[in-house]
């Protein structure tokens, strides 16, 4: 077999002030025709930079400090001007991470695609349109003929990613480079895109380089894998070998720290100092939050055929309990958290705190003890702390505002495993994980009874993720804290939650204990979600073909919100609101069909 890509002793650096910073060093790799190589590593490992070098693309201030990148015998960094353009137009194509930003907003899809196969010299407009349509068909974009004359913003994220792939395929490249092609997409969409990609790879016999932080995706897609850390390859080889018998301690730690549905409990830390922790749900503790019949409506006026954004949501959180609120983007899970925090108005419903106090709809109308009792932890640690104020300011403010006795900034920081020295730092001087700890400390400073944690680990690397999950586990047990844990990540839910509430388009479809939800029987939507999850060590060949549909924009006015996508749908589902069916004392689903079969 001939090598399509050969990277020898590659080094990439940039200069910052007087210092030289190495992004990649001593990288040597080989890619045979038809191979799929996965580049895996945590943020800052240099995996995207390495992928870019295959197209002779570097960030403006970076330069090659050693080595060569050869694609089909051609040293790519020797190419310039017209030759470089020709190389990029025919040999290697890139599918960028965020296709929404990578498609030119002012150009029609057909024109952008035509640019990519301009080298074929299709003379007439008809021919070009036909070729573009054929490409869109290949990537399974719904209604390809109509899509040609549309603009990028008129498509959903998943559809944009498909167009991005079509554009990359247009040049019939020998190598397809994919930079985190499914990051930011919902699980169902991700599964569908990956399905399409591997089918295309087989049919066209292309070589691919896939950059991902997700070991499950790499395991699903790649024949070979290279693990990067701090710009160096720590281990590489055939995927099965590396993932099942990792030779390097870092690889072992990385694999072990990935949360998995198949393995309940919080995964061990990457260095192995903390072992797998399986939570025990508290029993018989008091209710700290009761939500009844919650409705939120974003619509300014009634749109025929659509219903309110959030409707009829009911859930409870007990002391010491972590309740996961799960759903895809647009399911209304953050809206619900905002309503509980008093940051957003509700149209209907009652919220009761600790069984006695009714939560007023807005912060302004809540008493100080109520505001103190309900605390929020935000998704994005970058924006949740004021960049101009020190950690001390952030943690001290709730201490003073709520007049908390017997607690200092240092003690609060210690609770989240940060030493007192961090108090004088600004958020810009902290790592992502440290920032999230400060966010947690700010909430804990108020000594709350209920914490709303909105996607608090989604932006973090897996190694940091497990330590934050471990922290939440400890705090909830030690302080008897009720936690409403909002996330889209089912593996994280499996790791940390005691009970789960599954949302679809602002409606609860299923709720129960963690074992109930991950058990055999449940709501068809939950089944689809679970089937779509791609995990390390799954039998990917045996998996059912992925569903190619996407979540609609708005819930329907009548019937079951999931009816339009449900495999078990019946006539009644489109007309009547589904009944609440108990499958066990701890497990309920909202379904016309599954419940009836019982």
């Amino acid at each position: 077999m001939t090598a399509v890509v050969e990277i020898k002793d590659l080094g990439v650096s940039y200069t910052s002030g007087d210092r030289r910073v190495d992004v990649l060093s001593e990288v040597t790799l080989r890619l045979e025709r038809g191979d799929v190589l996965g580049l895996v590593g945590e943020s800052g490992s240099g995996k995207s930079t390495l992928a870019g070098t295959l197209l002779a693309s570097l960030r403006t201030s970076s330069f090659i400090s050693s080595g060569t990148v050869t694609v089909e015998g051609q040293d790519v960094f020797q190419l310039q001007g017209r030759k470089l353009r020709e190389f990029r137009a025919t040999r290697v194509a890139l599918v960028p991470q965020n296709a929404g930003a990578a498609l030119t907003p002012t150009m029609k899809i057909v024109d952008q695609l035509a640019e990519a196969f301009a080298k074929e010299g299709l003379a007439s407009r008809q021919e070009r349109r036909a070729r573009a349509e054929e490409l869109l068909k290949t990537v399974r974009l719904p209604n390809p003929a109509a899509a040609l004359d549309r603009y990028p913003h008129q498509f959903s994220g998943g559809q944009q990613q498909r167009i991005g792939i079509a554009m990359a395929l247009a040049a019939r490249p020998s190598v397809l480079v994919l930079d985190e092609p499914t990051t930011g997409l919902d699980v169902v969409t991700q599964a569908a895109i990956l399905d399409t990609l591997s089918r295309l790879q087989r049919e066209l016999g292309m070589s691919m380089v896939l950059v991902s932080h997700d070991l499950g995706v790499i395991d699903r897609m790649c024949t070979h894998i290279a693990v990067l850390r701090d710009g160096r390859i720590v281990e590489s080889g055939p995927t099965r070998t590396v993932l099942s018998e990792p030779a390097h301690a870092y690889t072992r730690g990385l694999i072990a720290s990935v949360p998995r549905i198949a393995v309940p409990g919080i995964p061990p830390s990457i260095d192995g100092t903390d072992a797998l922790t399986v939570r025990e749900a508290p029993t018989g503790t008091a209710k700290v939050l009761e939500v009844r019949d919650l409705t939120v409506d974003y619509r300014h006026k009634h749109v025929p055929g659509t219903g309110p954004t959030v409707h009829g949501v009911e859930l409870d959180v007990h002391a010491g309990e972590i309740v996961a609120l799960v759903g895809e983007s647009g399911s209304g899970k953050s809206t619900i958290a905002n309503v509980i925090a008093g940051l957003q108005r509700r149209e209907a419903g009652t919220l009761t705190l600790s069984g006695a106090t009714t939560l007023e709809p807005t912060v302004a109308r809540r008493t100080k003890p109520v505001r103190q009792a309900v605390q929020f932890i935000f998704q994005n640690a970058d924006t949740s702390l004021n960049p101009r104020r020190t950690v001390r300011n952030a943690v001290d403010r709730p201490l003073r505002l709520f007049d908390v006795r017997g607690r200092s900034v240092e003690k609060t920081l210690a609770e989240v495993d940060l030493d007192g020295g961090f108090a004088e730092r600004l958020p810009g001087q902290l790592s992502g994980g440290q920032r999230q700890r400060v966010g947690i400390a700010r909430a804990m400073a108020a000594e709350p009874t209920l914490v709303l944690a909105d996607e608090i680990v989604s932006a973090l690397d897996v190694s940091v993720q497990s330590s934050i999950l471990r922290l939440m586990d400890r705090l909830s047990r030690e302080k008897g804290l009720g936690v409403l844990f909002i996330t889209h990540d089912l593996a994280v839910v499996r790791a940390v939650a005691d009970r789960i509430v599954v949302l679809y388009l602002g409606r609860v479809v299923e709720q129960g204990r963690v074992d109930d939800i991950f058990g055999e029987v449940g709501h068809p939507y939950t089944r689809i979600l679970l089937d779509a999850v791609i995990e390390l060590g799954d039998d990917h060949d045996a998996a059912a073909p992925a569903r190619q549909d996407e979540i609609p924009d708005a819930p329907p006015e009548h019937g079951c919100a999931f009816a339009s996508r449900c495999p078990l749908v019946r006539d009644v589902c489109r007309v009547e609101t589904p009944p609440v069916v108990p499958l066990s004392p701890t497990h309920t689903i909202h379904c016309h069909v599954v419940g009836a079969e019982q």
Partner: protein
Amino acid sequence: MPTRMVLVRLGGALVTILLSAVLVFAAIQSLPGDAATQILGQNATPEAVATLRTQLGLDQPPVQRFLSWLGHALTGDFGTSLASGEPVGSEVGHALLNTSFLAAVTILVGFVLACLLGLVAGIFRDRWPDSVISTLALIGMSVPEFIVATLLVLLFAIKIPIFPAVVTAGSNATIAELLPSMALPALALVLVSAAYIIRMMRTSVIDVMETDYVRTARLKGVAPVRLVLRHVVPSAILPTLNVIAMNVAWLIGGVVVVESIFNYPGLGTLMIRSVQNRDLPVILLIAVLSAVTYVLCNLLADLAAVLLNPRLRYPRRAR
């Protein structure tokens, strides 16, 4: 085109124009002394002043006067100039025509050139074409109009006398008579207003050049000229439209210094004279006209943005 949006904007525009008229009316209302004393001079007898005031309708309460002005204005009657006794409509209209002509020359020559220079500077960021253009732009925005105009007169009318220094034709001159003396004022206006357009264009070109989609187009092997014309310019021109609109509005309503230096018979010159004479009807009409221009320019810029930006043209996701 979303008609609803246009209607809403037009409604807002009308409110803005009306409000500006009210503001100017109220401000001039608080002038110590009024047109009557101004016309008759300090030594006039109180009886004469009173008679003139009644004649001019100045003895009525302000609100009523504003409403009656508004009523007449809506029928196209803007009253008579207190100073010259001529109909305000024709006096202001004539000046507006002259000013618009000067503005048109400036826009056609200057603004197109400015956009091109900004584009070049943005593409060649931090290299010599950029340094030259950016330095010129900086000087352009730093040197006051009266200095630019004075220097131009010194250079092209006195040292090398190729253009007339001031307009000698009277205030009723025809466009043809004005044409030769328009060169220097137009040049001064180009120099002063092009700077902001150049800088905005440069900034937005740089912004667009750094987007993911331009990087993707590069990695697709798109040729440089096509890259700039198809991928960069359509997005880069959008923010520049607003600066152009602001400058056009300024060219119609704000060119006082240049017009007065060159004695150009436009709105600016008329404005100064009317303020000196406290000629309320003239000032009011100039203010309203300027406000209309300002609002119209912004509206046109927004409409152009809608035409250029598919995200505004087709706001909904395809189903």
